Structure formats: C-alpha cells, structure tokens
C-alpha cells in the first residue's frame, strides 16, 4: 500500500463518521428512553381513534386551522357523528392540558418542533384532571 498513513487516517475518519450514531448513543445516549404520553382526561374517548391520532393529528390540526382561520367555520363533525369545536386550546387541551407530559413526550423524542405556541398561549401546566369547563 502506498501512502499508508494517509489511507489509514482516511479510513479511520470514514469509520468514525459512519459509526457516529453507535458511539454517540453509547457515550451520551439515553437509548432506553421511550416516550410515554400521559393522558389525564375526563372525556371517555378522543374524537378519533388513538391509532389515527398518533400518526395524523397534525393533518387534522392543519385542516382545523385552515377552516377556522380562512373560512370562519368552527364546528367539526367527528367520524362518530359528535360535534366538536375546532379549537386547539379549548378542545384538544381540555383533555390534554399537560403539554410537557403529553405533547412534548413524542415531539422531543423525534425532534418535532411544532409552531403551535407561536400563536396560541401555552397552557398552564396541570396534571390534574380538567373539570367543569
């Protein structure tokens, strides 16, 4: 092998870069962390299935925002026929007022930074069941 020193240096750099996730997780990682969103609600069930909400709540909120802000339409008819007010603060956050223990659990885990709170006021954190609104 010619220029062995340089070649080996290059290969070491390549290996260090490719294995970055491995040694990063070993060194400073918290790989056993699993997000555990806490649900502290009075409502018996969400307006849609948990499976739907897990993957697609952002699409629903996007549609809600457009309907409310652009069309002034505030009533949402859920798949089960019930009517809800399209409101993040008043409808969603009524059942899920614990932003840190609910929203942030998965969002931080996946580096998702939704800009909800640039317009909406962040809720006062409570872990109590929200009642009597």
């Amino acid at each position, binding site marked *: 092998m*010619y220029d062995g020193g340089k070649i080996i240096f*290059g290969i070491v750099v390549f290996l260090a870069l490719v294995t*970055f*996730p491995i040694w990063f997780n070993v060194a400073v990682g*918290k*790989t056993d962390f699993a997000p555990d969103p806490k649900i502290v609600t009075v409502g018996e069930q969400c307006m849609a299935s948990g499976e739907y909400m897990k993957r697609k709540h952002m*699409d629903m909120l996007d549609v809600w*925002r457009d309907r409310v802000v652009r069309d002034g339409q505030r009533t949402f008819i859920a798949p089960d026929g019930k009517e809800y007010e399209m409101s993040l603060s008043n409808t969603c956050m009524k059942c899920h007022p614990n932003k840190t223990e609910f929203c942030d659990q998965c969002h*931080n*885990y996946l580096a998702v930074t939704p800009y909800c709170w640039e317009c909406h006021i962040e809720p006062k954190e409570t872990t109590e069941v929200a009642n009597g609104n």
Partner: protein
Amino acid sequence: MGIIISLVAVIALTLVAWIGAGTLGLHYLFGVIIPYLALAAFVFGLIYRVVKWAKAPVPFKITTTCGQQKSLPWIRHNKLESPFTGWQVFGRMLLEILFFRSLFRNTKMALKKGPRLVYGSEKYLWLAGLAFHYSFLVIVLRHLRFFIEPIPGFVMAIQNLDGFFQVGLPIIYITDGVILAALVFLFFRRVINPKVRYISLAADYFPLFLIGAIALTGILMRYFEAFKAELIAVKELAIGLVGFSPVVPEGLDVIFFIHLFLVSVLLMYFPMSKLVHMGGVFLSPTRNLANNNRNRRHVNPWNPDVKVHTYEEYEDEFRELMKAADMPLEKE
C-alpha cells in the same frame, strides 16, 4: 435500453419489499437482517475499494493542471491549479470535494452559422450536481434524529434551517424539493443530449432511479396523510439497530419497509458501482498529486533494482591499465 432495465430493476426491488414485508410479513428480514448486511457491505466494500486503489502504484505524477506551474520567481505561480506543495494540493482537493471545482470549468461547444465553432461555459451540470449532493447530505444528517437520543443541537439546527420557510404542515423541507428537481435534471441531461445519451449506461440510470424512489417514498411518508408512518416505531427500530439489540416494533407499514429496503440496496450497491466516487474523489491521482516533477524526483515504484556501474567504480577497476596507457584520471 439502459433506462428500461434500470426502471424495471427499481420497480422489481420495490415489489420485493412490498411482497416480502407486506404480503409475507417478513418484518425481521427486511427490518433487521437486510439493513445489517447492507451496512456491512457498504463499510467493508468501501474500505476494500480504497485499499485496492492504495495498492496501485503510480509510476509518474500525472497531475492535471490548468494554471502556471511554479517556475522562476517573477512568474506568478497558480497555487491551486498547479499545486506544488502538499498544502496547495490540500487546498485544491478541498475546493474539489466541497465545491466540485473541476465541474465548474465544464464547457460546451456549438457550431454556429458561418460555420463558426463557439465555446461557452456550461454550469448546469455543476449546479445540479452541487444541489443534489448537498441535499443528500442534509437529508442524511436529518435522519440522525431517528438513530440517536438525545438529539444534538446541530441536527435540530439543520432541520430548522431546512424548513426555514415554514410552508405547509408538516413543514416542507427545502432539500426534499431540491433533490427531486436535481434528479429530474440529471436524468433529462442524459436523455435529451444525444451524445450524453449515447454514453449513458444502465449503471448511470439505475442510481438516479433508485435514489429517486428512495426520495419519493420518504416524501410520501412525510407529507401525504395516507402514507404517514408511525415515527415512534421507526425510531424504536432504528435505535435498536444502532445499539445492536434489534427489535421490530408493531405499526411499521409496507411503505416504510420499501423505503428501508431501497436504502439497503443503495448501500450494498454503493461500493461496486460508480457511486464509490465518494471515496474515489480523494484518491484521484490527477487531482491529489503535486505538480513538482521538475523539482523532486518521483521514483516509479515498480522500477527494478538496476545494478549501476558508476564512473568512479570504473576508474577504480581499470586504474592501473588506464595509467599505463596514459589516460587522464580523475583520481590518481
């Protein structure tokens, strides 16, 4: 012909993952075994290729230059286009690797009325190449969020910058659009120009289609409601793979397995195809050698060990005879 073969190959690979992970439910095979094999093939294949190149002797410095070489002190030396020292070579390589400098010099010829031959600069290939490579890099770095926990600041910074315009929800990443546009350009460049089409092979189209399919499946999973992936499960799988304790969580869809399988194929294909220019760019002898042939002797490594007989030795051998014949001697 190459186009059709490549397209059929990419569709067939998609179907393999579709049937394998979707219909037959071989989640462990497509989620764990194939990605591991692919990564091993990528890492060891690339090292193998690099070591093989490093073993090839360079009989002569074959630097390509396009600037004034180092000469007399009053002639201005072009340090980057005709590097003389190691650091000048380093500067040249840096510009080559980060900014594709040699591609920037691309020219085209055209025959105008007259007939008159005109040369002009041709920057589109350079621009599309740069756009493609940097988009790819940003996309790879963004994907780190699935592999590491906690997610470091630089990944967040890249992703925030990539979603700078805050269009749509989820926010549309600039690189997702740019990489598709660049791929489309690079494809049509091969197809439209008859001369380029003539020299294009299946090995040129296949990577374009493969990377295009990877980008499209990724885009479908991110932006289209019907294909949304369950990201928690994706991260669980990725972290498990990285920590060598793989688990296949529930909730992974066929489209995710297609995406993962195509990436695995890309990794396996990498060292045995033209894509290995990722390592090769560092080892191009026309770029990484200093143009100092006239100053420093470059010994051809395969030169045989020649037994020489110098004049001093000759004189020592025949001194007495030469003296007797009255021949001039250097040493008495």
